[in-house]
C-alpha cells in the first residue's frame, strides 16, 4: 500500500535536519569566527554526515540501488527528483568542504594545495552552502507536490518543510552549542532560545498556510483526532514539537536564563519534525 515508506520519510527528515544545521553553523561562523571554532567544526561535521546518511536512505529505497548514478549520468532537467538530486549532492559536497576547511582533517597534511584553497574560499563555501541548504530544505517539499496525492497538493508544503528543516537543524545546533559551551560569555547564549522561538513561530505560520491550502478532504483527514495520523500531526508535531518544543520551552529558557530544558526542547523539535514527515508521507499515500 505504501510505495514510499520509512526510508523516504527518514530521507526527507535527515535532508531537512542537515540543511538547517548547516545554515545555523555557517551563520555562527560568520558572526563569531574563531571564537566558536569547535561549535562550527561539529556543526559542519554533522551537516555532511547527516545529509550523507539521508542520501544513503534514498539509495536504499531504490528498486535498483546499483543504478543510482543514472541520476547523474542521465539527468532529466524538468524532473524535480533529477535537479533535486543535484542540489543535495552539491550541498553535501559543500558541507564536507566547509568541514574540511575548518578542521583540515586529512587535506591539511596530504593535500596542502586543496587545504589552502578551501581556507581561502571558506566564506564563499559557507554562503553557497547556506543557499544550497535552503534549496535542500525546500526541495524535499517540492518533490512531493508533483505527486497525485491530495495531502501533497498544498502549495505551502515546500515552505513548511523548509521551516521545519531550519527549526530541527537549529535544535540540533543548540545542543552542539550547549555541549561545546563556547557561546557562554560571548553574549550569545540568551539569543540561542530566542532564535529557536522565532523559527517556531515561522513554522507555525507555514503549518497554517499548508493546512489552509490543502484540498478539503485532505484537510479533514489531517485535522481529525479520530485518525491516528491526524492525532500524531496535532499532538506530536504541532503541540509537542512546534508549540511546546520550539516556542514555549525556548521562551521559558529566555526568561529564566538557564538551559535546563534545552535538551527536552531539542528532542521535542526533532520528534515533531520526524512526525511531520511521517504523517505527510504515510497519510498522503492512504487518502
Amino acid at each position: 500500500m505504501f510505495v514510499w515508506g520509512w526510508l523516504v520519510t527518514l530521507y526527507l527528515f535527515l535532508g531537512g535536519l542537515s540543511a538547517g544545521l548547516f545554515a545555523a553553523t555557517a551563520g555562527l561562523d560568520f558572526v563569531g569566527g574563531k571564537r566558536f571554532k569547535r561549535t562550527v567544526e561539529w556543526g559542519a561535521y554533522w551537516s555532511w554526515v547527516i545529509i550523507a546518511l539521508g542520501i544513503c536512505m534514498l539509495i536504499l529505497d531504490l528498486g535498483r540501488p546499483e543504478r543510482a548514478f543514472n541520476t547523474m549520468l542521465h539527468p532529466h532537467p524538468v524532473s524535480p527528483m533529477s535537479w533535486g538530486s543535484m542540489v543535495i549532492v552539491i550541498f553535501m559536497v559543500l558541507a564536507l568542504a566547509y568541514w574540511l576547511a575548518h578542521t583540515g582533517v586529512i587535506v591539511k597534511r596530504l593535500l596542502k594545495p586543496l587545504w589552502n584553497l578551501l581556507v581561502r574560499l571558506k566564506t564563499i563555501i559557507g554562503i553557497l552552502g547556506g543557499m544550497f541548504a535552503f534549496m535542500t530544505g525546500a526541495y524535499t517539499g517540492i518533490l512531493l507536490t508533483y505527486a497525485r496525492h491530495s495531502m501533497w497538493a498544498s502549495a505551502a508544503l515546500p515552505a513548511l518543510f523548509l521551516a521545519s528543516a531550519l527549526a530541527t537543524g537549529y535544535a540540533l545546533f543548540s545542543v552542539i552549542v550547549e555541549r561545546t559551551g563556547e557561546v557562554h560569555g560571548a553574549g550569545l547564549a540568551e539569543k540561542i532560545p530566542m532564535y529557536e522561538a522565532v523559527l517556531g513561530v515561522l513554522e507555525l505560520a507555514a503549518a497554517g498556510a499548508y493546512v489552509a491550502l490543502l484540498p478539503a478532504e485532505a484537510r479533514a483527514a489531517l485535522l481529525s483526532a479520530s485518525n491516528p495520523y491526524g492525532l500524531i500531526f496535532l499532538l506530536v508535531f504541532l503541540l509537542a514539537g512546534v508549540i511546546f518544543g520550539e516556542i514555549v520551552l525556548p521562551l521559558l529558557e529566555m526568561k529564566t536564563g538557564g538551559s535546563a530544558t534545552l535538551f527536552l526542547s531539542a528532542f521535542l523539535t526533532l520528534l515533531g519534525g520526524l512526525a511531520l514527515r511521517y504523517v505527510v508521507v504515510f497519510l498522503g499515500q492512504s487518502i
Partner: protein
Amino acid sequence: MTERESPPITNRRTFLKAAAALAAALPLLKAKEVKGSTSSGEGGVRYSILYDSAACIGCNACHVACKTRRGFPIRGMVERELSPVNWVFVSRAPSGGQLQTPPFVRHSCMHCGDAMCQLVCPVEAIRKWNGLVYIDQSRCIGCAYCVEACPYGVPRKNEGPSWGDWAPHGVSRKCDGCYAFVQEGKIPACVEVCPADALRFGTRDEMVAEAQRRVSENPNLWIYGLNEFGGLGVIYIFPKGFDPVREGVFPEPSEGYRPSVSRGPIALGLAAVGGLALMGAVKAKARGEGGE
C-alpha cells in the same frame, strides 16, 4: 458490414501497410524526444487505443492476451488490480451514477499527452514512441516517482522477483502500448483479441473520428479522454449518465503538467534567493560589527 464494424486501421492489412511505411520512414525521422509537450515523442504519429465501454462485454480477453504476450502468470481469476505483471483489466465501475447497471471500465495506462510519469522520471526512463508511453527498464532506477505521480495510479514498482524480460525486479512497469510489437507491424495484443469490437488501435485522429462516429450513431454515448491530461492516448466511449470522474474511477482532470514544470523551479529559486540573502546579510552584519 455495418459502419461500426469497419475498423479505420485495425484492419490488419491496412495497418501492416501503414506500419511498414512508418518503419521505412523511421530512420529519416529525427527520433528526438520532445520533452514536456503533448507531442507524440519519438516518431511523428500519435497512436491511440479506442475503448468502447458500451460495446465491451467484460470478458477480460484483453487481460489474458496482454499477459500471454509478455509471458506473465495467468491466475485462475481475473486480477482486478494493476501490478508489475498485470497491465490491463476490465471491471465494472463501483457505481453507475445515473445508470442502474454500472458500465465496464478498462484500467490501464492512458498514454497521456501530458504524461506526468514522464515528466517526473529523474533519469528519462519514461519515453514516448509515436504517442505510446513506455518505460525503458534498462534505465529505470526504481525510485517509484512515476508510481506516485501518475494521476491514474498506473505504474507499479516490481518489489518481487523478476518475471522474465518484461518485468525485472526493482523497476516500474506498466502497459507500454505494445510499442515494440507495433514497430514489428503488429497491433496491441489486447486490441487484437477483443471479440466485441470494443477496442481499436490506430492514429489518434482516426480513433477520435471513430469514437465520434459511434457517438453520432448512438446519442446515449459520450467520449472521455479528448482533452484530459493533454489529451489521452486511450479514447473512452461511455454511456451517458455515467461520469467516471464523478464516480471516483478517474481523477479530476488537470490543466496538464505545464504549471508543475514552472512551479517547482520557482519555489526552488525563491529558497535559493532566501538562503543567499540571509547568509549574505549575516556575513555583512558580522563584518560591520567587526566580526571575522
